[in-house]
């Protein structure tokens, strides 16, 4: 039993493949999440301030992207653009490097597009929950809008948003499995291939789950720490 496991994981190299898949997952998940969050914040602010037209557009974006399966977003992004990108790349003579890098780029962008839609809702909800009087205080002191946002609104909203962001992150890291359709061997796809070939689906899916669990356990401690830091000034509860 243990010997079988050893052969499977080490001699046939699945352990390394799984780790490599895990690295792809982390890299794409992290970059996608960060990019999504960075874009989501200003969009959520526009939505929160009910800026005409923009706010409707943001709403439409968030409803559509949250409403369709993530796979479609990736399909459309990838298969919708790959021809054009290829033509451009070939013209400029970078075909090979683009061929290799493009799935990663699309992967990150697709994950960002998806996580962004979810982040917008989380941040908007948190912004709405910040007591208005506290912002009036900042206004009346003539704090510049940017400062008000970065020093008052954002920290207060972040405290309220943290749980939601944590949820989006946990979801995003697992959504990276969708990018396997562009040919990236991330963790889940590696596990699926291993499961199929070795006919031990349980073993490999559980290993994948454990690796995911390990990643989220690390992020969870970071989130817990952030939560404690942001709760300063609100009294223990």
């Amino acid at each position, binding site marked *: 039993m243990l010997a079988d496991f050893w052969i499977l994981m080490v001699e046939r190299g699945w352990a390394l493949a799984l780790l490599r898949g895990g690295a792809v997952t982390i890299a794409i998940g992290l970059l996608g999440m960060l990019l999504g969050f960075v874009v989501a914040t200003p969009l959520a602010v526009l939505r929160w301030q009910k800026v005409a037209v923009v706010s409707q557009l943001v709403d439409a974006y968030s409803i559509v992207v949250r409403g369709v399966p993530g796979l479609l977003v990736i399909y459309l992004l990838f298969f919708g653009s790959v021809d054009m990108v290829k033509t451009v790349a070939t013209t400029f003579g970078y075909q090979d490097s683009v061929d290799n890098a493009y799935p990663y780029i699309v992967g990150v962008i697709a994950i960002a597009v998806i996580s962004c839609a979810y982040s917008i809702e989380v941040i908007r909800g948190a912004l709405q929950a910040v007591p208005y*009087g506290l912002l009036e*205080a*900042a206004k009346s*002191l*003539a704090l510049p809008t940017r400062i008000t946002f970065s*020093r008052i609104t954002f920290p207060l909203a972040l405290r309220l948003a943290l749980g939601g962001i944590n949820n989006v992150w946990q979801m995003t890291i697992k959504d990276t499995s969708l990018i396997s359709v562009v040919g990236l061997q991330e963790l889940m796809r590696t596990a699926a291939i291993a499961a199929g070939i070795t006919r031990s689906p349980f073993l490999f899916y559980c290993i994948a789950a454990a690796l995911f669990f390990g990643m989220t356990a690390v992020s969870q401690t970071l989130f817990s720490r952030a939560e404690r830091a942001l709760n300063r*000034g609100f009294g223990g509860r």
Partner: protein
Amino acid sequence: MNEVLKVHELTKAFGSTNVLDGISFRMKEGEVISLIGSSGCGKSTALRCINFLETPTSGQIEFMGQAISVSCNKRGESEIVNASYIRAFRQRIGMVFQNFNLWPHRTVLGNVTESLVYVLKMSRKQAEEVALSALSKVGMASFRDRYPHQLSGGQQQRVAFARVLAMRPKLMLCDEPTSALDPELVGEVLKVIRTLAEEGATILLVTHEMRFARDVSNRMIFLQEGRLEQDDTPEELLRNPATEGVKRFLSSVMPASA
């Protein structure tokens, strides 16, 4: 003396109810004016309109020679002329809120230094010095590292007052700045306000404490249901109430001095 504030025909309606009904008055440099009137007569709303936290329905506010006016357009919406002045106004107009509005995630010191650093562009060190001197004026310097929720009501109010004080605004709008303070501290605040006025600040305050109002202010303005009923020196207003409303209000206030 210079005219600091000119409020002209200020009107504010929430939905269909008029809360302010064409209020006009002027304030000169160094003047202290008390805004008095019964609960819900529009005092807080008036203050909030002056620095445009609330957009007036119509009227004009002139501060230090710059005027922002609001008029009703055809579709019944308020239109602000010179909205770009609003920030300039707010930089030199301080406001103490009726419910304090301290930032819960910043310490006492942080609440005060914030605007010093980011509006007056002081260095952090200088800001802390200024903040501490403002805090010590209201006896709160020793609480510098507490968070607002660790303070009593009166302590929070004093921090809110110091937050504005530290900015040395040209005009201070104080919404019941002593409501949660004991008489001893009220006296302290009174002293601070007097000093400020002597140094050239102009102060418009809402208060229910007639004694305090009388002691501190050059003029008193009485509001009733959004209308300005009387604008006089304290002595005059207390001796010769102009309308029935003023008289009735005062009779319940100062039975002794009537």
